[in-house]
Every structure is written in C-alpha cells, then in structure tokens.
C-alpha cells in the first residue's frame, strides 16, 4: 500500500530533542512531584510533633489550648488538600472532552484550595488574637510580633490567592473555549 504524501512528509521528520536529557529530566520531575506530595504530610507531622512537645513540656492551659487547636486545624486543612488533589487524578485514559472537563475541575480545585488557604489563614489570625486576649500571660512580651505575624500572613496569602486565582480562571476560559470547539464538531 502506497503511503499518503502528507504522511510521508510528516514521518520524515527526524528527532531534534535530546532523548537522554529528556528521559533524565522526566525521571527527576517524577521524583520532585513525589516530594512535593510528601511535603504536605511532613508539614502536618511537624506541626503535630511540635504542638505535642510543647503541650508535654508546659502544663499551662494556654499552651494546651493553642496546641490542640493547631493540631486539629492543620489536620483538617491537610486532609482537605490531599482530598482535593486525589479527587482530580486520572487524566491518562480519558478522551479529549473528559480530559478538558477534568482539567477545568483541577483549576476549580486549585482556586478552591487557594480560597481555603486564605480562610484558614484568617481563621488562624483570629484564633491567635483570641488566644492573646484569653491567655495574655503567654504573649506578654510578643503582642506586636503576634499581631504583625498573623496579619502579615493573611495579606501574603490573599495576594498569592488573587494572582493564582486569576491564572487559573484564564486557564478555565481557555479549556472552555476548546470544549466549545469540540461541541461544534459534534453538532
């Protein structure tokens, strides 16, 4: 069977990209992705260990309340982040339409993730200020630092969320445009 001239031309292209380098970088990227996933769990673990150690070392009620609060809120946040990530896995065996829909869901999950982080940060800031007022002896020398730290993180997270959310919404628009193209073909 003779080959289509376009097919012949298409397949005549020789490889230009460095194979070994791409394979090496792909392996490194895969390892990196694993470590990024592990960071969530490590952060959670370190908060739990640090809070438990402080509770164990100090018998003051203020420390106990802050420690328990930190463990519960961090566990809820990390659990939610991991759920968001795993609920958007599985892109590889899908067709184009479902891949795009899944990508839109991933972007929406990303925006949700940012939103939850900001809410978490504000919540923590309020909690710190509340603890400061309920247990003033724990914060005697560090009031300004505690307020500044809490509000500073809130502002930093909010700026990050705005930037990231904008980027994700642009991607969603692009995916929706591609989905519209697919729908036009089916009509």
């Amino acid at each position, binding site marked *: 069977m003779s080959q*289509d001239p*376009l*097919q012949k*031309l*298409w*397949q*005549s*292209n*020789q*490889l*230009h*990209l460095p*194979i070994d380098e*791409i*394979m090496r*970088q*792909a*392996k490194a*990227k*895969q390892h990196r*992705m694993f470590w990024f996933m592990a960071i969530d769990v490590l952060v959670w673990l370190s908060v739990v260990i640090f809070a438990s150690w402080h509770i164990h070392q100090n018998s003051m009620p203020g420390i106990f309340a802050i420690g328990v609060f930190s463990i519960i809120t961090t566990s809820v946040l990390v659990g939610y982040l991991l759920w968001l990530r795993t609920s958007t896995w599985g*892109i*590889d*065996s*899908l*067709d*184009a*339409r*479902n*891949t*795009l829909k899944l*990508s839109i869901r991933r972007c929406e999950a990303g925006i949700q993730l940012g939103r939850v982080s900001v809410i978490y940060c504000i919540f923590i800031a309020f909690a710190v200020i509340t603890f400061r007022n309920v247990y003033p002896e724990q914060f005697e020398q560090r009031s300004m630092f505690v307020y500044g730290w809490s509000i500073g993180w809130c502002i930093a997270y909010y700026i990050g969320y705005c930037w990231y959310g904008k*980027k994700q919404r*642009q*991607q969603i628009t*692009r*995916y929706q445009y*591609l989905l519209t*193209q*697919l729908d036009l*073909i*089916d009509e």
Partner: protein
Amino acid sequence: MIYWKTWRTKSAIEQHIQTHLPMLERIVASYESRHALQQELLQEVVVAIWQAADKYQQDASIKTYMARIAQNRCITHVDKSVHNPDGGEVEEEMKVSESVTIEFEKEQQWQQLIAQVRQLPLQQKQTLSLMLEGFSYREIGDICGLSESNVGVLISRAKATIKHELKER
C-alpha cells in the same frame, strides 16, 4: 515482588518511550511551536506515560496508549501560552523556517506542514496528526472518543485545509 514487577514494567515502558519518541515529539510539535516549551511539554508527556505504565492493559497497542496520553497532555498545555495563545509563535516559526530553508528544503516543507497543523481546530488537529502517524480511523476514534465516520469527516476537512494552504504558499 511488587517492586520487582513495577521496576520491570517501568523499564519496558522506558524502552517503548525510546522507540516512539519521534511520534511523541511530532505530536508535541503540532501543539507547541517554541523549542524550549516543546522540550518541557515532551517531558510532561514522558512523565505521564511513566506514571500510567502500571495502568496499561494490553487491550490497545502501546503506541495507541502513548498517543492517547500525549494528546491528552498536549490539549491541556496552556499554562505558558494562555496569556497570548496566538502571539509569539509567528516570529519563532519564521526564525526556524528561515534557518532551515538554507540547509534543508525538506525540513522547510515539514515546518510548513507542522505550522499548518498547529493552526487547525482542536479535533481536526488531533485526528490529522494521528492519521499522519499511521493510526487507523478506528484507533483514532478510540483515542479521541469519536465515531469512525466523524474521524473521516474531520480528516478530510483538515487535509483540504492543509493542501489549500500549502498550495497558496
């Protein structure tokens, strides 16, 4: 035992990737014109194939499986081009074309073809690039989630556009 099985699967996949890398590179090139981003996208494709190695059931050929993953990765590759999806490419393409015209006429023809493929609507681009890789209409239909007749229509439209554009040049 499980580790051994996974290691063997991945090492077999590595060999398949080596074999089909030219195909993967062409699919990537039909979505991305900039060389640096092509390399980055190709890496993403290779990582995705790697990660999906354990899920590969031998109901389709490994080539079809890889092409499906590559297509899926490529259509979601908008991160860097999202701000200016059409801009920035022309200059790069012209530079590439100019540099290769001097040396290889065939290379230039290929560059023109790939540039035309990039301009096609999404599903025409998918079906045509897979057809040019030698996949049957049935396999293309499986990869893209389309019926064989739809594949036929899309490919003939895409070919007509490409031939018209190439003649005009």
